[in-house]
């Protein structure tokens, strides 16, 4: 019975925009399905289990065998998706009353059946399923599930369902293979937590809070250490006898995208650091790093054009020793000693920024204008490495944002709770020739009241519609805050903003007085030497 239940789960996940609703759907799956079905389903959703048993050609042949070619052509033209067309047109043979397969039946049969018999196997299963079940099966066997459940979301769902902290689940997640039976036994209280031993696993990261003025006033300078906040992505490096892995901040294995880093991980340690593109000792803009992200594999050319490096700032394990209970100062000393000894290629240390008072530090922060630096990190010298976001141990103190007064050009509806609101805004500035050119898109920063007001304004000032997008009267100025401006070929203006958000609605300001493109261009910061930022 598990395949029809899995089909219903899939369909709901595909159509559900809300995170909480997805979590509820996953929790119901864990609670109602037996082992190994729930684990197989979970692995299929998170892409840990991907089949390639059937190519699209097989699907086409199955269709051709069951339906008139003209009707198949008209159906496929209409639906536009091969798997869905077959699922919908499939007419089960009369008299078949075999029960639908369980997910485990599908997994076992696909592993043991010779390739030539796979089409007949699939065809037999299709006869036992309804349209939703057929679609799930076809997507499953062709490896094209794509439901958008990240491993991180799955772990949060496991945590909410079981009551165990998500950090505790993350610590063992990568040490347990699907169908995760020991994991489920532990989460149901029937067995101790699985021990990953030498497996390279992800350790949940210690996270920082944004520093606000009242927090700053309460700080006692000698207790704190400062580092630059680099504009890359946070990574964890895990290497030892069981293998090496590069993890993203959310615990995703991104090793395959960065083979040059993996090759440099010839040690036994767990490290925390920032992944950057570094060219000739200079940190490249974030846009360069983006070229390397979200890839399953990477070409030699990509590695040459966008060379990756890691700037290290913490040591969690040295050999088998767990250093996380040690204070920051002790870990820092161990990190520096380890780095001097190991000298791993493509890895340097993020330097400590010296300061004698918070005033000095504030001036240093203000002076830092290199694109590769987002601000400062403040870390308590006596703080252990604690998973999650514990307040008062680490602060991120971002540079004050830059702002620009831009003109609202297009608006688009949001998703989920915001689906009835025009909540995504494209804005532009004036070019010298008097044309308004878009420089970015923002969908945050406003209050609920401002969103209501903007939504109403957009509906009342629409001049054109393109599907979900409305073009509006050039009549509203928005003050947009952003962290950096960069050159870009994506926008007609030639610039792109990093983290743009709506700071204020400038109803008072005439559109002619919005900023000009030259003003934005002047804010483009070039990459400065990474280890010698302007102080």
């Amino acid at each position, binding site marked *: 019975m598990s395949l029809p239940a899995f089909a*219903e789960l899939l369909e*709901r996940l*595909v*159509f*559900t*925009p*809300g995170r909480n*609703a997805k979590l*509820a*759907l996953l929790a*119901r799956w864990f609670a109602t399905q037996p082992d190994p079905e729930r684990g197989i389903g979970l692995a299929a959703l998170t892409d840990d289990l991907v089949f390639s048993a059937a190519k699209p050609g097989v699907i086409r042949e199955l269709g051709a065998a069951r*339906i*008139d070619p*003209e*009707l198949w052509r*008209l*159906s496929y033209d*209409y*639906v*536009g*998706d091969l798997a*869905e*067309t077959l699922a*919908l*047109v499939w*007419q089960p043979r009369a008299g078949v009353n075999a029960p639908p397969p369980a997910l485990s039946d599908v997994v076992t049969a696909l592993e043991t059946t010779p390739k030539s018999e796979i089409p007949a196997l699939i065809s037999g299963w299709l006869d036992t399923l*309804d*349209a939703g079940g057929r*679609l799930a099966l076809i997507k499953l066997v062709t490896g094209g599930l794509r439901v958008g459940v990240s491993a991180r979301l799955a772990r949060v769902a496991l945590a909410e369902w079981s009551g165990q902290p998500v950090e505790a689940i993350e610590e063992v997640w990568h040490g347990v293979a699907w169908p995760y039976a020991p994991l489920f036994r532990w989460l149901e209280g029937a067995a101790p937590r699985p021990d990953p031993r030498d497996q390279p696993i992800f350790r949940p990261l210690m996270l920082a809070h944004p520093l606000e003025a009242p927090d700053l006033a309460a700080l006692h300078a000698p207790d704190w250490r400062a580092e630059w906040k680099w504009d890359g992505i946070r990574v964890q490096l895990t290497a030892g006898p069981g293998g090496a892995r590069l993890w993203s901040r959310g615990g995703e294995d991104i090793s395959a995208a960065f083979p040059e880093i993996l090759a440099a991980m010839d040690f036994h340690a767990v490290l925390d650091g920032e992944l950057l593109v570094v060219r000739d000792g200079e940190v490249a803009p974030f846009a360069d790093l983006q070229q390397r992200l979200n890839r399953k594999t990477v070409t030699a050319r990509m590695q040459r054009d966008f060379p990756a490096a890691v700037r290290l700032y913490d040591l969690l394990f040295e050999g088998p020793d767990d250093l996380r209970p040690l204070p920051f100062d002790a870990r820092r000393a161990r990190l520096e000693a380890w780095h001097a000894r190991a000298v791993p290629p493509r890895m340097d240390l993020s330097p400590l920024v010296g300061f004698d008072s918070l005033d000095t530090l504030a001036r240093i922060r203000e002076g830092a204008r290199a694109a590769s630096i987002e601000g400062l990190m403040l870390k308590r010298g006596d703080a252990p490495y604690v998973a999650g976001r514990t307040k008062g141990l680490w602060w991120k103190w971002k540079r004050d944002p830059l702002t620009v007064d831009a003109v609202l050009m297009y608006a688009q*509806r949001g*998703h989920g*709770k915001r*689906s*009835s609101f025009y909540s995504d805004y494209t804005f532009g500035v004036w070019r010298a020739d008097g044309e308004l050119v878009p420089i970015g898109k923002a969908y945050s920063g406003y209050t609920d009241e401002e969103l209501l007001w903007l939504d109403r304004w957009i509906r009342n000032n629409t001049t054109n519609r393109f*599907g*979900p997008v409305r073009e509006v009267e050039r009549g509203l100025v928005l003050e947009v805050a952003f962290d950096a401006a960069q050159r870009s070929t994506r926008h007609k203006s030639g610039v792109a903003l990093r983290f743009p958000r709506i700071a204020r609605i400038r109803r008072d300001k005439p559109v002619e007085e919005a900023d000009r493109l030259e003003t934005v261009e002047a804010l483009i910061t070039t990459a400065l030497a990474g280890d010698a930022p302007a102080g």
Partner: protein
Amino acid sequence: MRPVSAPHPETWLKVTPSGLFCEPGGFFIDPTRAVDRAVISHGHSDHARPGHAHVLATRETLAIMTQRMGEGRAGETQQALALGEPLSINGVRLWLRPAGHVLGSAQVCLEWQGSRAVVSGDYKRRRDPTAAGFEPEPCDVFVTEATFALPVFRHPPAEAEIARLLRSVALFPERTHVVGCYSLGKCQRLVAMLREAGWERPIHLHGAHVALCRVYESLGVPLGALRTATVAKKDDLKGAIVLAPPSAVADRWARRLAEPVVCVASGWMRVRQRAKQGGVELPLVISDHADWDELLATADDVQAPEIWVTHGREDALIHALGQRGIRGRALHLVGRGEEDEGEEPPPAP
């Protein structure tokens, strides 16, 4: 079955710019513009237009038309004809048989000089607690719709879709389930099916759905406790089911609801991309039109050697009919498929 001497229906039932015209009888069937004499199959606005001088239809269809168009606009004179009761108009025998589409919907059966044609209007073959079930009438020419005439459209049992809706309500008890549905037919069928499935709580309605529910109840279709969603407090709508026009479910109107789960009940929901475009969270495949199998089964049941297709996807249907030795003919009637789900859903606004 037509005696050799009988005239072919195409000689006396003609396609005109105003729609199908029975020449010897002097009346139109579901005309697209105001005419002198009209026979109306059912109350959807693409079949029932205002301003005819004389309207003949079932009692229920006349009541629905009057409610929607206002007194006097639904025919200067109205003539109710009971199902199965024959009538003779200028030598043309006319009687109505149930079409199963919505309350009052009827097939218009015509016979002239031994030659018989049945104009079915819109129809379905599934059980519907709010509409009398379709009855096949053998004929020489059967006039059919083809809204869902592709093999991809095979509606699942509507009861199973209602069960999915109720499972979702149980899983998200803090949220409002708002179901987009057309105000004539689909709305009342959903209410009645929810009642059959044991849902006894009040069902909330968008204002646009209230009047026709009243008409249904006055015609003897019980719908249980109904409330207006517009005046309800957000908290009272937690865990509630709300029925609203499809255009309202994902727009400003829905903001009054508690974290709505947007559902749409329509045959179009069968195709994923269609459902996704509309921002639907729970697509329910429930249709008041015949699906592919029902269209073909009906062709067999009425034993007509020739079938005329009014509107929809005639290519696939005419191709499949040809394989069964039935001659198919596309009528290309204009103005059809404009009210209920006969219309393809628009992309998200």
